[in-house]
């Protein structure tokens, strides 16, 4: 009986949490499918309305949201890949090589310190730098900035995963005749792949949703990402709720699919390091 109550309350709490986090998503989804009349009806029709795809057509056929989506994918994937490669190598070095003057610790802290100030502090300097190297309104500028933004996170996450791995395995690989890099690729990385997957998901989400730098560094359709494109529908004369919701709904899909694909790793990655084994 007591167990049943405990289980019941557990499900009740889960339901509340789910409602809390999913309600805005549901609201967005319904707005994207409602005609403008239904959107502003009071009380709002929660379930019974005639769905329409006109906003999706408007967003992706009439307007350039398809291109924004493409830019978002390129920028997020490329910056995540760059941050993972550079960050993983740096993390491995910090976790395994003993540097002089206690640099391991100091460098790690320096790397982390780049995330200690608000992002907007760097917005103006970055804008000026990108202008000088003529990278404004390019995807490259966003890839560079997001890579830099994600690096501290990758380094700190991966450093922890590497540190938890027994050194014996790499040493065995070296004695067996493999190079440092070979041991890293063939022995170490497969063993930290859950951590790598978890880190990749975080990087992707951050790059995908990033708004501030995308707004500052891109003003034309050439390199506009979805968040900026969506926000751009708030104009002086009207707010296109339907188009914005349609684009935002589509924006959820890639991240959701990736997270589902690596879900198996994700749980292990997030709890790795918590328990040795």
């Amino acid at each position, binding site marked *: 009986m007591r167990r049943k109550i405990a289980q019941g309350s557990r499900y009740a709490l889960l339901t509340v949490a789910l409602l809390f986090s999913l309600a805005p998503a549901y609201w967005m989804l319904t707005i994207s499918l409602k005609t403008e009349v239904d959107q502003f009806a009071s009380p709002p029709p929660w379930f019974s309305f005639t769905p329409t795809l006109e906003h999706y057509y408007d967003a992706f056929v009439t307007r350039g949201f398809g291109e924004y989506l493409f830019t978002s994918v390129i920028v997020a994937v490329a910056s995540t890949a760059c941050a993972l490669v550079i960050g993983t190598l740096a993390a491995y070095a910090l976790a395994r090589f003993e540097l002089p003057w206690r640099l391991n610790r100091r460098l790690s802290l320096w790397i982390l310190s780049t995330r200690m100030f608000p992002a907007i502090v760097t917005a103006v300097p970055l804008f000026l730098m990108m202008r000088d190297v003529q990278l404004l309104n390019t995807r490259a500028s966003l890839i560079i900035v997001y890579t830099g933004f994600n690096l501290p996170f990758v380094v700190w996450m991966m450093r922890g995963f590497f540190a938890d791995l*027994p050194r*014996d*395995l790499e*040493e*065995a*690989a*070296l*004695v*067996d*005749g*493999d*190079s440092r890099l*070979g041991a890293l690729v*063939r*022995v170490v990385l*497969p*063993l930290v792949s859950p951590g790598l997957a978890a880190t990749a998901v975080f990087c992707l989400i951050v790059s995908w949703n990033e708004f501030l730098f995308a707004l500052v560094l891109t003003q034309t359709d050439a390199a506009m990402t979805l968040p900026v494109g969506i926000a751009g529908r708030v104009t002086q004369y009207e707010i296109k709720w339907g188009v914005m919701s349609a684009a935002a709904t589509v924006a959820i899909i890639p991240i959701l699919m990736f997270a589902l694909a690596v879900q198996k790793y994700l749980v292990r990655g997030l709890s790795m390091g918590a328990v040795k084994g």
Partner: protein
Amino acid sequence: MGIEFKNVNKEYGSTSVVDDLSLKIDDGEFIVLLGPSGCGKTTTLRMLAGLEPVTSGDILIDGKRINDVPTQHRDLAMVFQSYALYPHMTIAENIGYPLRVRKLDKAKRAERVKRVAAMLEIEPLLDRKPRQLSGGERQRVALARAIVREPRAYLMDEPLSNLDARLRVQMRGELKHLQHELGTTTIYVTHDQAEAMTLASRVAVMMKGRLQQFDTPMNIYNYPANRFVAEFVGSPSMNFIEESPLTKGIRPEHIQVLSEPHDGAIAATVYVTEQMGNETFVFLTVGSNRLIARAPADFRADEESQVWIKIAEDKIHYFDPVSGERRATDNTD
């Protein structure tokens, strides 16, 4: 393949871990580095493997200085205490790893993996993952990975310490047989003197980073170079009687325990007896000294009872009471 340590030092900060080690190992020898934990034996092995930089001195393989040769180019094979099997690879992939790294083609690789697996009787395990194996099986896989290529030498870091007692004795025998068959120079680190005595062609006894004695097992047992070696090798350990001018050392088997008074026998009190099945250890009190004697299996004596002991005078070792060095005042030298 000959290996030589020439005045090798290893320091971590200001602590010296290996202190002026010089050691010359001949081709095909089975050398055991023996000592208590923290004596520098594992560090010595790791320096030879290239996993630990040398602070000063030289390490030579076949007369060539290898201090600066990276691990992967030293062509040595090592068996780790933890076995260090790659958990994400099958047993066949584990054993074949050194060959894969050397870019041997797949068919040849598979053939050699099979041959080694057959040699160590682990063929049925080839498709499994390390976590599905018992300790003894993992140990064999680690060995197989070491011998699948023909390295210049085998380095073994307490490879049997994670096995249960019965398996340890069995693997000890197999290791010795294997080394004899392959004839490859082997350097074996252990704190277990039984392993050292049974496996080694020569034993290097270390303490606090210093080499104490480097000799055959029998010479180490019969002519220990100093008090530390005498105490560390032999179980139960040697008895010491502090006398002036020299300290006397007597092995337990050289003390005969008698229930009746006898010519030249000294009176002693039994402190406790330990029956081992095949023999009995008798702990005795003689004046202010505690002694251990090895008696036959059927020896019986009550605690606090009076017995008599006879010490084989010609088997007594003498040590300098200050330096602990052996003194050749006995007639066995």
